[in-house]
Protein backbone atom coordinates (compact mmCIF):
# COMPACT_ATOMS: atom_id res chain seq x y z
CA UNK A 1 0.00 0.00 0.00
CA UNK A 2 2.95 2.28 -0.47
CA UNK A 3 1.04 3.89 -3.33
CA UNK A 4 -1.18 5.66 -0.83
CA UNK A 5 1.86 7.31 0.67
CA UNK A 6 3.13 8.22 -2.74
CA UNK A 7 -0.25 9.53 -3.91
CA UNK A 8 -0.64 11.70 -0.85
CA UNK A 9 2.81 13.19 -1.15
CA UNK A 10 2.25 13.77 -4.86
CA UNK A 11 -0.93 15.64 -3.95
CA UNK A 12 0.86 17.83 -1.47
CA UNK A 13 3.74 18.41 -3.85
CA UNK A 14 1.33 19.44 -6.61
CA UNK A 15 -0.38 21.93 -4.34
CA UNK A 16 2.92 23.27 -3.07
CA UNK A 17 4.11 23.61 -6.67
CA UNK A 18 0.93 25.44 -7.69
CA UNK A 19 1.37 27.88 -4.86
CA UNK A 20 5.10 28.18 -5.47
CA UNK A 21 4.54 29.34 -9.04
CA UNK A 22 2.27 32.18 -7.88
CA UNK A 23 3.85 33.42 -4.71
CA UNK A 24 7.07 31.58 -4.11
CA UNK A 25 7.25 28.41 -2.05
CA UNK A 26 4.22 28.31 0.27
CA UNK A 27 3.50 24.87 1.68
CA UNK A 28 0.08 24.34 3.25
CA UNK A 29 -0.02 24.71 7.02
CA UNK A 30 0.87 21.14 7.98
CA UNK A 31 0.18 20.10 11.58
CA UNK A 32 2.38 17.27 12.87
CA UNK A 33 1.45 15.21 15.91
CA UNK A 34 2.68 11.97 17.39
CA UNK A 35 3.06 9.77 20.40
CA UNK A 36 5.59 7.33 21.81
CA UNK A 37 4.47 4.77 24.33
CA UNK A 38 6.48 2.16 26.24
CA UNK A 39 5.54 -0.19 29.01
CA UNK A 40 5.80 -3.60 30.48
CA UNK A 41 3.43 -6.37 31.46
CA UNK A 42 3.38 -9.57 33.41
CA UNK A 43 0.71 -12.23 33.63
CA UNK A 44 0.39 -15.10 36.04
CA UNK A 45 0.06 -18.52 34.39
CA UNK A 46 -1.38 -17.70 30.98
CA UNK A 47 0.33 -15.97 28.04
CA UNK A 48 -1.92 -13.27 26.65
CA UNK A 49 0.25 -10.78 24.79
CA UNK A 50 3.19 -12.82 23.56
CA UNK A 51 5.08 -14.50 26.41
CA UNK A 52 3.48 -12.34 29.07
CA UNK A 53 3.86 -14.97 31.81
CA UNK A 54 7.61 -14.35 31.82
CA UNK A 55 7.14 -10.60 32.01
CA UNK A 56 8.30 -8.41 29.19
CA UNK A 57 9.03 -4.85 28.19
CA UNK A 58 7.82 -5.51 24.64
CA UNK A 59 5.00 -3.01 24.94
CA UNK A 60 6.00 -0.28 22.55
CA UNK A 61 3.85 1.84 20.25
CA UNK A 62 4.72 4.98 18.32
CA UNK A 63 2.93 7.02 15.69
CA UNK A 64 3.49 10.22 13.81
CA UNK A 65 0.93 11.95 11.66
CA UNK A 66 0.71 15.01 9.45
CA UNK A 67 -2.53 16.78 8.54
CA UNK A 68 -3.44 19.86 6.61
CA UNK A 69 -6.44 21.65 5.17
CA UNK A 70 -6.07 21.93 1.41
CA UNK A 71 -9.13 24.17 1.34
CA UNK A 72 -11.84 25.15 3.80
CA UNK A 73 -13.62 21.83 3.27
CA UNK A 74 -10.84 19.51 2.06
CA UNK A 75 -8.61 17.92 4.66
CA UNK A 76 -5.80 15.41 4.10
CA UNK A 77 -3.64 13.46 6.49
CA UNK A 78 -1.69 10.29 7.09
CA UNK A 79 -0.24 8.45 10.05
CA UNK A 80 2.67 6.04 10.30
CA UNK A 81 2.48 3.52 13.11
CA UNK A 82 5.01 1.20 14.70
CA UNK A 83 4.33 -1.50 17.27
CA UNK A 84 6.23 -4.06 19.29
CA UNK A 85 3.76 -5.82 21.53
CA UNK A 86 4.43 -9.44 22.28
CA UNK A 87 3.53 -11.41 19.15
CA UNK A 88 2.75 -8.17 17.28
CA UNK A 89 6.42 -7.29 17.04
CA UNK A 90 6.34 -5.22 13.88
CA UNK A 91 8.49 -2.21 14.64
CA UNK A 92 8.78 -1.25 10.96
CA UNK A 93 6.61 1.86 10.51
CA UNK A 94 3.64 1.27 8.24
CA UNK A 95 0.74 3.35 7.01
CA UNK A 96 -1.90 3.28 9.75
CA UNK A 97 -4.39 5.63 8.11
CA UNK A 98 -4.20 8.10 5.27
CA UNK A 99 -7.10 9.76 3.51
CA UNK A 100 -8.70 12.73 1.85
CA UNK A 101 -11.64 14.15 3.75
CA UNK A 102 -14.19 16.39 2.05
CA UNK A 103 -16.49 17.85 4.74
CA UNK A 104 -19.13 19.36 2.49
CA UNK A 105 -21.49 20.37 5.25
CA UNK A 106 -22.57 19.26 8.69
CA UNK A 107 -24.89 16.62 7.27
CA UNK A 108 -22.45 15.07 4.81
CA UNK A 109 -18.75 14.43 4.39
CA UNK A 110 -16.74 11.76 2.62
CA UNK A 111 -13.36 10.21 3.31
CA UNK A 112 -11.39 8.22 0.74
CA UNK A 113 -8.28 6.20 1.46
CA UNK A 114 -7.33 4.09 4.43
CA UNK A 115 -9.70 5.01 7.23
CA UNK A 116 -10.32 3.76 10.75
CA UNK A 117 -13.24 1.35 11.15
CA UNK A 118 -16.01 2.87 13.28
CA UNK A 119 -17.17 0.06 15.56
CA UNK A 120 -18.48 0.69 19.03
CA UNK A 121 -17.46 3.65 21.13
CA UNK A 122 -13.70 3.30 20.85
CA UNK A 123 -12.48 1.15 17.95
CA UNK A 124 -11.40 4.22 15.97
CA UNK A 125 -9.32 5.35 18.95
CA UNK A 126 -8.03 1.97 20.07
CA UNK A 127 -4.34 2.89 20.22
CA UNK A 128 -4.71 6.45 21.52
CA UNK A 129 -3.52 5.87 25.06
CA UNK A 130 -3.79 9.54 26.01
CA UNK A 131 -7.52 9.67 25.24
CA UNK A 132 -8.61 7.24 27.96
CA UNK A 133 -7.86 6.06 31.46
CA UNK A 134 -7.38 2.26 30.99
CA UNK A 135 -4.23 0.89 29.36
CA UNK A 136 -6.14 -1.96 27.75
CA UNK A 137 -9.68 -1.24 26.64
CA UNK A 138 -12.11 -3.99 27.71
CA UNK A 139 -10.59 -6.99 25.94
CA UNK A 140 -13.85 -8.76 25.27
CA UNK A 141 -14.91 -6.03 22.82
CA UNK A 142 -11.56 -4.47 21.85
CA UNK A 143 -9.09 -7.39 21.89
CA UNK A 144 -5.47 -6.35 21.43
CA UNK A 145 -4.92 -9.55 19.45
CA UNK A 146 -7.38 -8.37 16.75
CA UNK A 147 -6.10 -4.80 16.55
CA UNK A 148 -4.38 -5.20 13.21
CA UNK A 149 -7.45 -6.86 11.65
CA UNK A 150 -10.20 -4.52 12.80
CA UNK A 151 -8.26 -1.29 12.80
CA UNK A 152 -8.73 0.17 9.33
CA UNK A 153 -10.12 -0.44 5.88
CA UNK A 154 -9.15 0.88 2.48
CA UNK A 155 -12.08 2.38 0.64
CA UNK A 156 -14.67 5.04 1.26
CA UNK A 157 -16.57 6.36 4.28
CA UNK A 158 -19.44 8.85 4.39
CA UNK A 159 -20.33 10.62 7.61
CA UNK A 160 -22.49 13.39 8.96
CA UNK A 161 -24.47 14.82 11.81
CA UNK A 162 -28.23 15.34 11.47
CA UNK A 163 -29.85 17.86 13.85
CA UNK A 164 -33.17 16.74 15.35
CA UNK A 165 -34.39 20.11 16.67
CA UNK A 166 -35.30 19.57 20.32
CA UNK A 167 -34.28 15.92 20.28
CA UNK A 168 -30.54 16.33 19.88
CA UNK A 169 -28.79 14.97 16.81
CA UNK A 170 -27.98 11.78 14.93
CA UNK A 171 -24.36 11.09 14.02
CA UNK A 172 -23.76 8.49 11.31
CA UNK A 173 -20.90 6.80 9.47
CA UNK A 174 -21.15 4.25 6.64
CA UNK A 175 -18.27 2.66 4.80
CA UNK A 176 -17.12 0.00 2.37
CA UNK A 177 -13.82 -1.31 1.07
CA UNK A 178 -11.22 -3.92 1.89
CA UNK A 179 -9.55 -4.76 5.15
CA UNK A 180 -5.93 -3.70 5.35
CA UNK A 181 -4.39 -6.34 7.56
CA UNK A 182 -0.61 -6.61 7.88
CA UNK A 183 0.97 -10.02 8.38
CA UNK A 184 2.62 -10.73 11.70
CA UNK A 185 6.34 -11.07 10.90
CA UNK A 186 8.87 -13.43 12.40
CA UNK A 187 6.75 -16.58 12.42
CA UNK A 188 8.49 -19.82 13.34
CA UNK A 189 9.19 -22.04 10.28
CA UNK A 190 8.44 -25.17 12.39
CA UNK A 191 4.97 -23.91 13.24
CA UNK A 192 1.97 -23.31 11.07
CA UNK A 193 2.53 -20.04 9.26
CA UNK A 194 0.06 -17.47 7.98
CA UNK A 195 1.69 -16.16 4.82
CA UNK A 196 -1.06 -14.19 3.07
CA UNK A 197 -4.33 -12.50 3.94
CA UNK A 198 -6.69 -11.74 1.11
CA UNK A 199 -9.49 -9.41 2.11
CA UNK A 200 -12.62 -9.85 0.01
CA UNK A 201 -14.75 -7.04 1.37
CA UNK A 202 -15.82 -5.11 4.40
CA UNK A 203 -18.78 -2.80 4.82
CA UNK A 204 -20.74 -1.48 7.73
CA UNK A 205 -22.14 1.49 9.54
CA UNK A 206 -22.58 3.27 12.80
CA UNK A 207 -25.37 5.41 14.21
CA UNK A 208 -25.25 7.42 17.43
CA UNK A 209 -28.06 9.45 18.93
CA UNK A 210 -26.90 12.44 20.96
CA UNK A 211 -30.01 13.30 22.99
CA UNK A 212 -30.36 16.79 24.48
CA UNK A 213 -28.51 15.63 27.59
CA UNK A 214 -24.92 16.82 27.69
CA UNK A 215 -22.39 14.01 27.54
CA UNK A 216 -24.83 11.21 26.66
CA UNK A 217 -24.74 9.16 23.46
CA UNK A 218 -26.35 5.84 22.60
CA UNK A 219 -26.17 3.89 19.39
CA UNK A 220 -25.03 0.88 17.49
CA UNK A 221 -22.52 -0.33 14.93
CA UNK A 222 -22.47 -3.20 12.53
CA UNK A 223 -19.94 -4.65 10.10
CA UNK A 224 -19.72 -7.52 7.67
CA UNK A 225 -16.46 -8.79 6.22
CA UNK A 226 -15.04 -11.67 4.22
CA UNK A 227 -11.42 -12.74 3.99
CA UNK A 228 -9.18 -15.67 3.02
CA UNK A 229 -6.18 -16.63 5.11
CA UNK A 230 -3.42 -18.59 3.39
CA UNK A 231 -1.75 -20.91 5.87
CA UNK A 232 1.24 -23.19 5.52
CA UNK A 233 0.74 -25.94 8.07
CA UNK A 234 3.61 -27.09 10.28
CA UNK A 235 5.40 -30.15 8.76
CA UNK A 236 4.32 -32.38 11.66
CA UNK A 237 0.69 -31.38 11.20
CA UNK A 238 0.89 -31.89 7.43
CA UNK A 239 2.22 -35.44 7.97
CA UNK A 240 -0.51 -36.14 10.52
CA UNK A 241 -3.27 -35.17 8.08
CA UNK A 242 -1.68 -37.31 5.34
CA UNK A 243 -1.33 -40.32 7.64
CA UNK A 244 -4.95 -40.02 8.78
CA UNK A 245 -6.09 -39.91 5.17
CA UNK A 246 -7.70 -36.48 5.56
CA UNK A 247 -5.72 -35.24 2.55
CA UNK A 248 -3.95 -37.01 -0.35
CA UNK A 249 -0.24 -37.97 -0.02
CA UNK A 250 0.70 -35.15 -2.39
CA UNK A 251 -0.65 -32.52 0.05
CA UNK A 252 1.93 -29.74 0.39
CA UNK A 253 0.61 -28.27 3.66
CA UNK A 254 -0.98 -25.19 2.10
CA UNK A 255 -4.51 -24.48 3.31
CA UNK A 256 -6.89 -21.63 2.63
CA UNK A 257 -9.08 -20.70 5.56
CA UNK A 258 -12.06 -18.64 4.44
CA UNK A 259 -14.08 -16.55 6.86
CA UNK A 260 -17.31 -15.66 5.08
CA UNK A 261 -18.98 -13.87 6.54
CA UNK A 262 -17.75 -12.27 9.70
CA UNK A 263 -20.83 -10.47 10.98
CA UNK A 264 -20.37 -8.24 14.04
CA UNK A 265 -22.75 -5.85 15.78
CA UNK A 266 -22.55 -3.84 18.95
CA UNK A 267 -24.90 -1.68 21.04
CA UNK A 268 -23.23 1.17 22.92
CA UNK A 269 -23.96 3.79 25.56
CA UNK A 270 -21.69 6.41 27.08
CA UNK A 271 -22.36 9.14 29.59
CA UNK A 272 -19.83 11.79 30.59
CA UNK A 273 -20.88 14.04 33.43
CA UNK A 274 -18.49 16.39 35.23
CA UNK A 275 -15.44 14.29 36.06
CA UNK A 276 -17.18 10.96 35.57
CA UNK A 277 -17.35 8.72 32.55
CA UNK A 278 -19.62 5.68 32.27
CA UNK A 279 -19.72 3.30 29.32
CA UNK A 280 -21.39 -0.01 28.56
CA UNK A 281 -21.45 -2.09 25.39
CA UNK A 282 -22.96 -5.40 24.30
CA UNK A 283 -21.71 -7.14 21.19
CA UNK A 284 -22.14 -10.33 19.17
CA UNK A 285 -19.52 -11.61 16.71
CA UNK A 286 -20.70 -14.28 14.28
CA UNK A 287 -18.23 -16.02 11.96
CA UNK A 288 -18.50 -18.88 9.47
CA UNK A 289 -15.19 -20.54 8.56
CA UNK A 290 -14.29 -23.29 6.10
CA UNK A 291 -11.02 -24.80 4.87
CA UNK A 292 -9.76 -25.83 1.46
CA UNK A 293 -8.69 -28.62 1.43
CA UNK A 294 -11.00 -29.76 4.19
CA UNK A 295 -8.50 -30.45 6.98
CA UNK A 296 -11.12 -29.37 9.48
CA UNK A 297 -14.90 -29.34 9.11
CA UNK A 298 -16.64 -26.04 8.39
CA UNK A 299 -17.54 -24.27 11.61
CA UNK A 300 -19.55 -21.35 12.85
CA UNK A 301 -19.01 -19.34 16.00
CA UNK A 302 -21.23 -16.86 17.79
CA UNK A 303 -19.38 -14.90 20.49
CA UNK A 304 -21.07 -12.80 23.15
CA UNK A 305 -19.05 -9.83 24.43
CA UNK A 306 -19.95 -7.09 26.88
CA UNK A 307 -18.57 -4.79 29.57
CA UNK A 308 -19.34 -1.93 31.92
CA UNK A 309 -16.79 0.79 32.67
CA UNK A 310 -16.53 3.75 35.05
CA UNK A 311 -13.76 6.34 35.15
CA UNK A 312 -13.24 9.32 37.43
CA UNK A 313 -10.87 12.28 37.09
CA UNK A 314 -9.82 12.97 40.67
CA UNK A 315 -8.04 16.18 39.66
CA UNK A 316 -6.04 17.48 36.68
CA UNK A 317 -3.26 14.96 37.30
CA UNK A 318 -4.93 11.83 38.63
CA UNK A 319 -7.66 9.61 37.24
CA UNK A 320 -8.88 6.11 38.02
CA UNK A 321 -11.04 3.61 36.20
CA UNK A 322 -12.51 0.16 36.65
CA UNK A 323 -14.33 -2.18 34.32
CA UNK A 324 -15.80 -5.65 34.18
CA UNK A 325 -15.53 -7.31 30.80
CA UNK A 326 -17.01 -10.65 29.73
CA UNK A 327 -16.42 -12.87 26.71
CA UNK A 328 -18.34 -16.06 25.95
CA UNK A 329 -16.88 -17.91 23.00
CA UNK A 330 -20.20 -19.65 22.27
CA UNK A 331 -23.35 -17.79 23.22
CA UNK A 332 -25.25 -21.08 23.13
CA UNK A 333 -22.84 -22.79 25.51
CA UNK A 334 -21.81 -20.24 28.11
CA UNK A 335 -21.00 -22.93 30.67
CA UNK A 336 -18.61 -24.81 28.35
CA UNK A 337 -20.45 -28.13 28.41
CA UNK A 338 -19.32 -29.11 24.90
CA UNK A 339 -16.16 -31.12 25.60
CA UNK A 340 -15.13 -31.11 21.94
CA UNK A 341 -15.11 -27.33 21.79
CA UNK A 342 -13.99 -26.70 25.36
CA UNK A 343 -11.56 -29.28 26.83
CA UNK A 344 -11.87 -27.38 30.10
CA UNK A 345 -15.21 -25.78 30.92
CA UNK A 346 -13.55 -22.46 31.67
CA UNK A 347 -12.19 -22.27 28.09
CA UNK A 348 -15.70 -21.07 27.24
CA UNK A 349 -15.45 -17.74 29.06
CA UNK A 350 -13.23 -14.91 30.27
CA UNK A 351 -14.52 -12.63 33.02
CA UNK A 352 -12.08 -9.82 33.46
CA UNK A 353 -12.14 -7.29 36.34
CA UNK A 354 -9.64 -4.48 35.76
CA UNK A 355 -8.58 -1.33 37.63
CA UNK A 356 -6.30 1.48 36.41
CA UNK A 357 -4.61 4.53 37.86
CA UNK A 358 -3.50 7.31 35.50
CA UNK A 359 -1.09 10.12 36.38
CA UNK A 360 -0.66 13.05 33.99
CA UNK A 361 2.77 14.52 34.74
CA UNK A 362 1.99 17.39 32.40
CA UNK A 363 -0.06 18.02 29.24
CA UNK A 364 2.20 15.75 27.17
CA UNK A 365 3.43 13.00 29.47
CA UNK A 366 1.47 10.40 31.42
CA UNK A 367 1.96 7.20 33.40
CA UNK A 368 -0.50 4.39 34.02
CA UNK A 369 -0.63 1.24 36.12
CA UNK A 370 -3.27 -1.45 35.68
CA UNK A 371 -4.25 -4.79 37.21
CA UNK A 372 -6.54 -7.50 35.81
CA UNK A 373 -8.08 -10.43 37.64
CA UNK A 374 -9.48 -12.93 35.19
CA UNK A 375 -11.66 -16.00 35.57
CA UNK A 376 -11.64 -18.25 32.49
CA UNK A 377 -9.39 -18.81 29.52
CA UNK A 378 -11.42 -17.75 26.46
CA UNK A 379 -8.86 -14.98 25.77
CA UNK A 380 -6.06 -17.51 25.43
CA UNK A 381 -7.52 -20.98 24.79
CA UNK A 382 -7.02 -20.76 21.00
CA UNK A 383 -3.28 -20.29 21.32
CA UNK A 384 -2.38 -22.04 24.53
CA UNK A 385 -2.88 -25.69 25.55
CA UNK A 386 -4.06 -26.32 29.11
CA UNK A 387 -4.48 -22.73 30.26
CA UNK A 388 -5.11 -21.92 33.93
CA UNK A 389 -8.59 -20.85 35.02
CA UNK A 390 -7.75 -18.02 37.40
CA UNK A 391 -5.00 -15.64 36.38
CA UNK A 392 -3.88 -12.06 36.62
CA UNK A 393 -2.24 -9.50 34.41
CA UNK A 394 -0.34 -6.41 35.50
CA UNK A 395 0.74 -3.57 33.23
CA UNK A 396 2.54 -0.25 33.45
CA UNK A 397 2.87 2.22 30.62
CA UNK A 398 4.16 5.70 29.95
CA UNK A 399 3.17 7.78 26.94
CA UNK A 400 4.43 11.04 25.52
CA UNK A 401 2.07 12.85 23.15
CA UNK A 402 2.87 15.91 21.08
Amino acid at each position, binding site marked *: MKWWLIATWIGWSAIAHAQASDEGLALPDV*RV*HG*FVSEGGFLSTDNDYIGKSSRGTLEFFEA*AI*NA*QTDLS*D*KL*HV*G*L*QLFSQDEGAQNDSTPRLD*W*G*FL*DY*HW*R*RELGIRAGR*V*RIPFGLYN*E*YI*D*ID*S*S*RVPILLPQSVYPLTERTVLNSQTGFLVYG*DLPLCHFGSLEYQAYGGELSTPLAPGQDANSSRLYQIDSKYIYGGQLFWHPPV*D*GLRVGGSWLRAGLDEYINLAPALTQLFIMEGVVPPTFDGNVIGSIRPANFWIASAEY*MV*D*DWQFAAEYSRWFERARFDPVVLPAATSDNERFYGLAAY*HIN*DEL*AASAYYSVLYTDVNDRSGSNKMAFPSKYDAWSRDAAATLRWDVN*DHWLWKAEAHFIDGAAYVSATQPMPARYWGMFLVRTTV*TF
Partner: protein
Amino acid sequence: MMRRGLLLALVLLAAGGGSSRAGGDDAYEIIVNPAVDVSEIDRDTLRDIYLKKVNELDGHDTHPIGLASKFPAAERFIHDVLRKTPSQLKSYWNQQIFSGKGVPPPDADSPSAAIDYVLDHEGGVGYLPAGTPPGKAKLVRLR
Protein backbone atom coordinates in the same frame (compact mmCIF):
# COMPACT_ATOMS: atom_id res chain seq x y z
CA MET B 1 -42.20 42.91 48.17
CA MET B 2 -42.30 39.48 46.60
CA ARG B 3 -43.19 40.98 43.20
CA ARG B 4 -40.22 43.38 43.44
CA GLY B 5 -37.91 40.43 44.21
CA LEU B 6 -39.25 38.54 41.21
CA LEU B 7 -38.77 41.60 39.00
CA LEU B 8 -35.19 42.00 40.22
CA ALA B 9 -34.48 38.32 39.49
CA LEU B 10 -35.86 38.72 35.95
CA VAL B 11 -33.69 41.81 35.36
CA LEU B 12 -30.59 39.94 36.56
CA LEU B 13 -31.44 36.95 34.37
CA ALA B 14 -31.88 39.21 31.33
CA ALA B 15 -28.53 40.89 31.99
CA GLY B 16 -26.79 37.48 32.17
CA GLY B 17 -28.26 36.39 28.82
CA GLY B 18 -26.63 39.12 26.70
CA SER B 19 -23.69 38.96 24.39
CA SER B 20 -21.32 38.50 27.29
CA ARG B 21 -21.42 36.72 30.59
CA ALA B 22 -21.82 39.24 33.39
CA GLY B 23 -19.30 39.57 36.17
CA GLY B 24 -15.98 37.96 37.10
CA ASP B 25 -12.54 37.82 35.48
CA ASP B 26 -13.65 34.84 33.43
CA ALA B 27 -16.51 36.52 31.58
CA TYR B 28 -16.20 36.50 27.80
CA GLU B 29 -17.72 38.05 24.68
CA ILE B 30 -18.15 36.50 21.25
CA ILE B 31 -16.70 38.18 18.17
CA VAL B 32 -17.01 37.42 14.47
CA ASN B 33 -15.59 38.81 11.28
CA PRO B 34 -17.72 41.79 10.11
CA ALA B 35 -18.51 39.88 6.89
CA VAL B 36 -20.60 37.42 8.92
CA ASP B 37 -24.06 38.90 8.88
CA VAL B 38 -25.37 37.70 12.23
CA SER B 39 -26.11 39.63 15.40
CA GLU B 40 -26.51 36.62 17.66
CA ILE B 41 -25.41 33.03 17.78
CA ASP B 42 -26.84 30.15 19.75
CA ARG B 43 -24.73 28.14 22.15
CA ASP B 44 -25.16 24.79 20.34
CA THR B 45 -24.05 26.24 17.01
CA LEU B 46 -21.03 27.87 18.63
CA ARG B 47 -20.16 24.62 20.35
CA ASP B 48 -20.36 22.69 17.06
CA ILE B 49 -18.19 25.31 15.33
CA TYR B 50 -15.48 24.95 17.99
CA LEU B 51 -15.70 21.14 17.90
CA LYS B 52 -15.50 21.41 14.09
CA LYS B 53 -18.76 19.56 13.49
CA VAL B 54 -20.13 22.61 11.73
CA ASN B 55 -17.99 24.38 9.14
CA GLU B 56 -20.36 27.10 7.86
CA LEU B 57 -21.91 30.21 9.39
CA ASP B 58 -24.03 32.58 7.35
CA GLY B 59 -22.58 31.09 4.14
CA HIS B 60 -18.97 31.57 5.27
CA ASP B 61 -16.54 28.78 6.03
CA THR B 62 -15.86 29.01 9.73
CA HIS B 63 -12.44 29.68 11.25
CA PRO B 64 -12.73 29.48 15.04
CA ILE B 65 -9.94 30.57 17.36
CA GLY B 66 -9.67 30.05 21.11
CA LEU B 67 -7.69 31.72 23.85
CA ALA B 68 -4.66 30.27 25.63
CA SER B 69 -5.49 28.48 28.88
CA LYS B 70 -3.82 31.24 30.93
CA PHE B 71 -6.95 33.36 30.36
CA PRO B 72 -9.73 32.56 32.87
CA ALA B 73 -12.24 33.29 30.09
CA ALA B 74 -10.93 30.25 28.19
CA GLU B 75 -11.84 27.80 30.94
CA ARG B 76 -15.24 29.44 31.40
CA PHE B 77 -15.90 29.27 27.66
CA ILE B 78 -14.96 25.57 27.54
CA HIS B 79 -17.28 24.87 30.45
CA ASP B 80 -20.23 27.05 29.35
CA VAL B 81 -20.21 26.66 25.59
CA LEU B 82 -18.36 23.42 24.82
CA ARG B 83 -19.85 21.90 27.97
CA LYS B 84 -16.75 19.82 28.62
CA THR B 85 -14.17 19.61 31.35
CA PRO B 86 -10.58 20.41 30.26
CA SER B 87 -9.71 16.69 30.43
CA GLN B 88 -12.74 15.77 28.31
CA LEU B 89 -11.77 18.37 25.73
CA LYS B 90 -8.18 17.14 25.66
CA SER B 91 -9.39 13.57 25.21
CA TYR B 92 -11.78 14.64 22.42
CA TRP B 93 -9.02 16.36 20.43
CA ASN B 94 -6.57 13.51 20.99
CA GLN B 95 -9.16 11.20 19.46
CA GLN B 96 -9.70 13.54 16.51
CA ILE B 97 -5.98 14.13 15.91
CA PHE B 98 -4.88 10.49 16.06
CA SER B 99 -7.75 9.16 13.98
CA GLY B 100 -7.13 11.80 11.32
CA LYS B 101 -10.47 13.56 11.73
CA GLY B 102 -9.02 16.97 12.38
CA VAL B 103 -7.04 19.25 14.60
CA PRO B 104 -8.28 21.72 17.23
CA PRO B 105 -8.73 25.41 16.53
CA PRO B 106 -5.63 27.44 17.31
CA ASP B 107 -5.38 29.25 20.64
CA ALA B 108 -4.41 32.91 20.61
CA ASP B 109 -1.77 34.09 23.06
CA SER B 110 -3.49 37.45 23.47
CA PRO B 111 -6.91 39.01 22.84
CA SER B 112 -5.37 41.21 20.14
CA ALA B 113 -4.05 38.09 18.35
CA ALA B 114 -7.57 36.60 18.49
CA ILE B 115 -9.01 39.79 16.98
CA ASP B 116 -6.38 39.79 14.21
CA TYR B 117 -7.16 36.16 13.37
CA VAL B 118 -10.90 36.81 13.23
CA LEU B 119 -10.36 39.83 10.97
CA ASP B 120 -7.98 37.85 8.72
CA HIS B 121 -10.58 35.14 8.01
CA GLU B 122 -13.99 35.86 6.49
CA GLY B 123 -15.66 33.24 8.68
CA GLY B 124 -13.55 34.10 11.70
CA VAL B 125 -15.14 33.39 15.12
CA GLY B 126 -13.53 34.05 18.47
CA TYR B 127 -14.09 35.18 22.04
CA LEU B 128 -12.46 37.80 24.21
CA PRO B 129 -12.29 38.50 27.92
CA ALA B 130 -15.33 40.67 28.63
CA GLY B 131 -14.62 44.37 28.28
CA THR B 132 -11.78 43.93 25.76
CA PRO B 133 -12.28 46.44 22.91
CA PRO B 134 -13.07 44.27 19.86
CA GLY B 135 -11.47 46.65 17.36
CA LYS B 136 -13.02 46.13 13.92
CA ALA B 137 -14.36 42.69 14.87
CA LYS B 138 -18.10 42.46 15.49
CA LEU B 139 -19.53 41.58 18.88
CA VAL B 140 -22.45 39.16 18.70
CA ARG B 141 -24.98 38.15 21.29
CA LEU B 142 -24.78 34.62 22.71
CA ARG B 143 -28.19 33.00 22.91
